[in-house]
């Protein structure tokens, strides 16, 4: 068949063409060099798919995590990255120190009032599309510290979270499962809708005037960013 003519249909066998391979590494070579995917495609080197679908597949399989240690859970998170559990096996285990290079943020620990605005800032610095895994009970509800005067009742108060992994702390296996589930969602093109959050960073001047704002007016610049915690409204 001449390659000058466009081929309209396959009329020979659809078995994978192994001529090139056989000539390189000898006949009857181990099949492991050819993936199942390659076999399914047959001899054609092209895949027809939707671009979005392809991108989602790629995204799910090459996730860069933010190297972000907060509290107890970060110890188990380190174990998940390290020997034995080795998150990298699932295409999701390269910790990046800078939020600008990361796709996924694992929030491993309790969020307190002082850290809330900082975490929001780190999250905002990550490029889109971005995903968040909340690790441990503290990121769900404040966990064992829920009644604390300084503890934000769950990381979802501040940033949207895709996957919650419960536990105090969750075992590395649980975190791996959570991340596998996140990958599944990303492959399916799902993400968490951003809902309006009670705690947002705002300019101080934009806050409604009340006793607290007036009291702090001398100390804080109008344009400074602040986060206002209305503890009474917290769950």
């Amino acid at each position, binding site marked *: 068949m001449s390659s000058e003519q466009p081929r309209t249909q396959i009329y020979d066998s659809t078995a994978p063409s192994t001529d090139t391979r056989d000539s390189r590494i000898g006949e009857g070579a181990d099949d492991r060099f050819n993936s199942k995917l390659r076999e399914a495609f047959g001899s054609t080197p092209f895949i027809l798919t939707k671009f979005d679908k392809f991108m989602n597949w790629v995204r799910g399989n090459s996730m860069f995590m933010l190297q972000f240690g907060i509290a107890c859970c*970060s110890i188990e998170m380190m174990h998940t990255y390290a020997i*034995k559990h080795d998150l990298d096996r699932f295409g999701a285990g390269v910790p990046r120190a800078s939020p600008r290079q990361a796709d996924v943020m694992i929030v491993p620990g309790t969020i307190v009032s002082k850290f809330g605005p900082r975490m929001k800032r780190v999250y905002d610095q990550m490029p889109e599309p971005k995903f968040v895994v909340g690790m441990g009970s503290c990121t769900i509800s404040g966990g064992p510290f829920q009644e604390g005067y300084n503890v934000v009742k769950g990381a979802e108060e501040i940033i949207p979270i895709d996957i919650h992994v419960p536990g105090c702390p969750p075992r590395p296996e649980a975190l791996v499962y959570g991340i596998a589930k996140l990958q599944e969602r990303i492959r399916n093109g799902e993400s968490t809708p951003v809902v309006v959050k009670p705690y947002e960073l705002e300019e101080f001047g934009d806050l409604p005037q009340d006793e607290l704002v007036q009291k702090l007016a001398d100390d804080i610049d109008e344009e400074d960013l602040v986060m206002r*915690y209305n503890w009474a409204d917290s769950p």
Partner: protein
Amino acid sequence: MSTGLERGQQPPVDVTEDELAALIGDRALARDDHLNAPGFVIRPDDVQDVLTDLRDEAGFDHLANLTAQEYADRYESIYHLRKYADPTQEVSVVVPTTTDEPVSQTAEPVFRTADWHEREAFDLVGIDYEGHPDPRRILLPETWQGHPLSRGYDQEKPQLVTLTEHANPVQPDHHDDESDTMFLNIGPHHPATHGVLHIETVLDGETVVDVDPDIGYLHRCEEQMCQQGTYRHQIMPYPDRWDYVSAGLLNEWAYARTAEDLADIEVPEYAQVIRTMGAELCRIAAHMLALATFALDVYGDFTAIFQYGMRDREVVQDILEDLTGQRLMFNYFRLGGVAWDLPEPREEFFEKTRDFLDGLPAKVDEYNDLLTGNEIFQIRCHDTGILEPEVAKQYGCTGPVARGSGIDYDLRRDDPYGYYDNLEWDVVTEDGCDNYSRVLVRMQEVEESAKIIEQCVDLLEDWPEDERTVQSNVPRTLKPDADTEIYRSVEAAKGELGIYMRSDGTDKPGRFKIRSPCFHNLSALPEMSEGEYVPDLIASLGSLDIVLGEVDR
């Protein structure tokens, strides 16, 4: 830095209570004896005077803790003093102030460590310290309203937290045509800060001019949580989360020891041996992580030593999981013993532990080859981050940090508890005072811990079957007598972990104060790193081995 102690003239180690009473004399308004120590009530303007006398005349050179609390009619600051030479010698100095005007004299000129302590007392309880060099909040944000551990604090009140740029604190001093300083924020999200520490650093070229650790990014109200829990069961889970680097059992022991002494509970000998073994396993795991992350800090070595450290921790965690049922947050100790006996079949557990201990020397050799024997590592760590013993004492440093500065202070030996007294082991000290010595101390402590565990395993193996009592009889509801006060401490992985408790007649503590070793060790960071290069600052921070959960509590 001068400590006021004249060299050559050593104050006496043993001081009797009568001698103390004579030393304080008329300045003592009353006596307020605690279970652990004689207490003297003094006037708020006598603080420096009395503390100086106690330090110089009676040799109380260690301000272990400062507890602040509010009663219905007064505020109280309690200075818990003890001696590095003999920590069983203790004295409490109680300073009451009125509710209307809670002002007390600062102790900062006498003990440098009072600086951070008094900031914390101001922050959480609301006592002002007159003459304090830096009266700011320390754990809560600057804009916080109210003092959360004072009476009548409204937790529902809204709060505002700012996200402003931090200003260069020394710029006016250094800014001219010739030189310029650069302000650098390290953290709160930074790989080298071991969590959420924020270090405000001012650099002149590559030299560190000013360092100010800004903590409180993980202040999750541990003291409030413990004050809301009942003695018997509800407090024990929290200590696991102070120093969360697998040092759980060591922390639980701090609470168990304090509460047992407060409520006068006996612990069966068998349970003490199990506790000792479990605690030392935890110490190994904690030191392994310290080593692994330190290698990560000074080399950026994620692939070899960090992973090796993690590999060895996994083995320890497996053993601890068999023993306690959890990998990290054990909740295994109970008042009066431990939760349950060793896992069945016991032989398997012993064999697993022995296997680990047998393999340990080879692993330690490997670490020595890779790390301490490595030339690059030695260049990074030798003679950097110098912490002189006198300075370390001023800052209340304990644990491997103090022992790396040649201070021979280990509560397992000096203030014995558990089964340590009956076992053969040594306290490790190094005289280098630098980052290298602190690493060496930790590595050798791993070996000492292994010795202890081995002896415990031998003991447990031969323990007669009908004497295996894991818990003594403890009443379901514990209500220690009202106004009993106690301060007790244990040697945790990072140093002296102490707890002050006051009972108020109910089944929950009236005041629960945690004395965290990391808090003190971290406060010495400016002494170690100012005038050095930035990389040495990171190395010093790594060798201090702080855990933010314990610094901020």
